[in-house]
């Protein structure tokens, strides 16, 4: 007898109501998703009914849909519970492999296939032929399986009721929160590492082991200990690795110091020339902002300042080291200035401020080359934006572009425009800034075939609006039909470190404006 199909049919009969609810939620999700495509970015609903329809209900469905999948998985696994010794099925001739296969078939049929079909429908509705994106659609379902369903199934095999399962989930969430808080308390910043995917694989591996052990041997106590052990190990590793905040030598290893020409020429500008608006200080910390001149970036390149280490020393030998501070500042060829800012504790500032200090910076840059650089003039109506998807301009609210991308945003797209090239009519209160200001927007997505999510359509909003220090305010380039954009796909060309030293610095001169406290 084919137990797989027999058990599968029984589970369908038993859980038809949950299946129907899940499918109904999926249909609602698709409907709300389609409706959201035409909602302008930045538009707010007015009135209770509109708010319900455009915000509250869709948000509720977004939340309930994955909950319904989780519920289905837990219910079907616990229909033949693997915990305890009173289940009627353990003394019946079930073949464990076929039982597991039946549960897998159920999850595949009612948790994976409906979203797969819904995603294909959404692609078609948005104007993308689903057959061109089969790999991406399958990838999306695989990600759901490995990122959520596998370990949820493992949890369901070591619990015997929904309340027990919820308790286990709550404990995991608390563990994650606690670990995160502990790691943050130890060190504030870290280099991003590549260990996450390996730990993800380890979690999936352990989950599979737990599932197989439970179905083949029902060793619940051992399975639970394995799961708890994995959580404890992850906690320890997370906390321990947070202590290993990168020091100078590890930064220099990852960002080798330039031997010849520097990636960028940075010069300290006088403080009076760049009075920014006041930057808040937090509790007992003081903000220091050094205006820097920028030059020497090749025309087809740009950089990101990933982070830095700041060392301040005064004449009395008092020394302060910031440790690794992450950052994310883009530097473009047409850019003339950029700030370097950091925070120090009030007590340290008071010690250092008694006289001039020597400031040493170790700056860590990632270098990019602008590839496939080409001009794109925005047409009217709906248009196809290369590398992205189908787009329209949004003239009322954001004055940008709203795009629908199939399965993922482009891995890395840079959109640039010079402010005078905008063809949008200026707003009533706007005064035109001087020309020659280049604004940028990045679109960064996944390099995999699909980004994680429920919908197969990714909404991409491109807006050109930045704080421009040269004019001391936000400058926006509205994107309307006729506006010229420069599109490019940046590629990382390397990482470089750079050292700067400034002597006889008066820190008080570089405090931006009157201080405002934020507590």
């Amino acid at each position, binding site marked *: 007898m084919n137990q797989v199909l027999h058990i599968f049919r029984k589970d369908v009969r*038993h859980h038809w109501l949950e299946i129907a609810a899940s499918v109904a939620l999926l249909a609602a999700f698709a409907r709300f998703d389609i409706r959201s495509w035409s909602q302008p970015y930045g538009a707010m609903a007015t009135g209770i009914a509109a708010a319900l329809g455009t915000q509250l209900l869709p948000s509720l469905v977004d939340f309930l849909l994955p909950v319904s999948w989780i519920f289905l998985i837990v219910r079907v696994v616990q229909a033949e519970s693997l915990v305890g010794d009173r*289940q*009627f099925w*353990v*003394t019946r001739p079930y*073949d*464990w492999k076929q039982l597991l296969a039946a549960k897998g078939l159920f999850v595949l049929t009612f948790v994976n296939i409906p979203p797969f079909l819904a995603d294909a429908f959404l692609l078609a509705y948005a104007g993308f032929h689903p057959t061109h994106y089969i790999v991406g659609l399958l990838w999306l379902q695989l990600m759901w399986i490995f990122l959520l369903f596998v370990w949820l199934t493992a949890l369901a095999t070591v619990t015997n009721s929904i309340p027990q399962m919820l308790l286990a989930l709550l404990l995991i969430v608390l563990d994650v929160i606690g670990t995160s808080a502990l790691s943050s308390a130890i060190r504030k910043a870290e280099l991003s590492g590549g260990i996450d995917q390996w730990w993800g694989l380890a979690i999936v591996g352990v989950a599979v082991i737990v599932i197989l052990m439970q179905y083949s041997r029902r060793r619940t106590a051992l399975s639970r200990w394995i799961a708890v052990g994995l959580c404890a190990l992850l906690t320890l590793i997370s906390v321990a690795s947070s202590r290993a905040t990168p020091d100078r030598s590890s930064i220099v290893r990852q960002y080798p110091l330039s031997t010849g020409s520097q990636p960028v020429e940075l010069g300290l500008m006088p403080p009076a020339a760049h009075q920014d608006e006041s930057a808040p200080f937090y509790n007992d910390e003081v903000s220091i902002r050094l205006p820097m001149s920028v030059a020497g970036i090749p025309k087809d390149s740009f950089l990101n300042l990933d982070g830095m280490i700041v060392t301040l020393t005064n004449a009395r030998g008092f020394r302060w080291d910031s440790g690794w501070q992450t950052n994310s500042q883009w530097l473009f060829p047409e850019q003339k200035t950029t700030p370097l800012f950091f925070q120090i504790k009030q007590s340290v500032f008071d010690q250092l401020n008694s006289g001039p200090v020597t400031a040493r910076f170790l700056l860590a840059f990632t270098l990019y080359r602008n590839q496939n650089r080409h001009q794109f003039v925005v047409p009217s109506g709906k248009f196809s934006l290369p590398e992205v998807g189908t787009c329209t301009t949004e003239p009322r609210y954001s004055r940008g572009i709203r795009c629908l991308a199939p399965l993922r945003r482009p891995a890395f797209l840079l959109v640039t425009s010079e402010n005078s090239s905008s063809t949008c009519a200026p707003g009533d209160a706007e005064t035109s800034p001087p020309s020659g200001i280049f604004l940028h927007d990045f679109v960064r997505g996944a390099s995999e075939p699909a980004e994680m999510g429920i919908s197969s359509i990714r909404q991409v909003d491109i807006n050109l609006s930045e704080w421009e220090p040269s004019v001391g305010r936000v400058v926006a380039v509205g994107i309307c039909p006729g506006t010229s954009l420069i599109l490019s796909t940046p590629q990382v060309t390397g990482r470089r470190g750079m050292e700067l030293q400034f002597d006889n610095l008066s820190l008080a001169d570089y405090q931006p404006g009157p201080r405002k406290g934020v507590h």
Partner: protein
Amino acid sequence: MTSAIQTDHLVKKFRRVEALQRLTLDVPPGAVYALVGPNGAGKTTAIKILMNILRRTSGRAQVLGLDSSHIRGHHLESIGYVSENQEMPEWMTIGALLAYLRPFYPTWDQALEAALVKQFDLPLDRKLRHLSRGMRMKAALASSLAYHPRLIVLDEPFTGLDPLVRDELIQGLLDRAKESTIFVSSHDLAEIETFASHVAYLEEGKLRFSEELSSLVERFREVELTFDTPPALPPQSPENWMQLSAAAAVVRFTESRFDPERTSAEIRRVFPEPRNIAFSPMSLRSIFLAMAKSGRNSA
């Protein structure tokens, strides 16, 4: 012939508690073997080890010639199991349960299934959650008999059932007794007595004895001795005499190794000429009560 069930120094510990202490028993094929004992004796533990629901600590256990720890999957096609606290799929009707289980067993006999449904008067369209306890046990038994199992294991099947339902269950079992070995645990001695062929007594995890019911009943007697004058009780009585007591000129005890000639000779050796010696057969309940009280007194 291979025993249906065989254990050899079977031990089960739950942390520090030794639930089973070197249990050694042998269930011959075709027997109706009753494992009796008070609550907490270890009966259910023993059965769960035999059914590979629990893991043993040490020792050996074999069921139908197979190590019990290997019993799973298709091995269960020959074994029927009914327990008073087994969790049934409450959402199913009786008919749906039988239809669901049918394909799992190659030897499922639909004619027998129909006969059992009729015999137990099972309402096929009623959900298990809406059944009384007795009806639920009957449904469970029907679902465990319909495939002609070689071994039927029942854990406290009569607990909380009215006499009519008990009778129906017992009759259902006896109808199958010729083709199956039946292993049943119970503390309901009155029922056991009516249909068991073998009985084993388990107390605090230890097997006190295991033998055929007929020989057990045969060797136990209530003995009543009548004297002319109240006799003195001996300081040391034979170990096969249990619960020795005297009231006025009458002495009573339970003889556990009864033989008409040997017992009479032993009585006369211990006591001066009694005026009258009377032997009365004992029910299983009386036998176990005497054994239980004797055990407590010796402890």
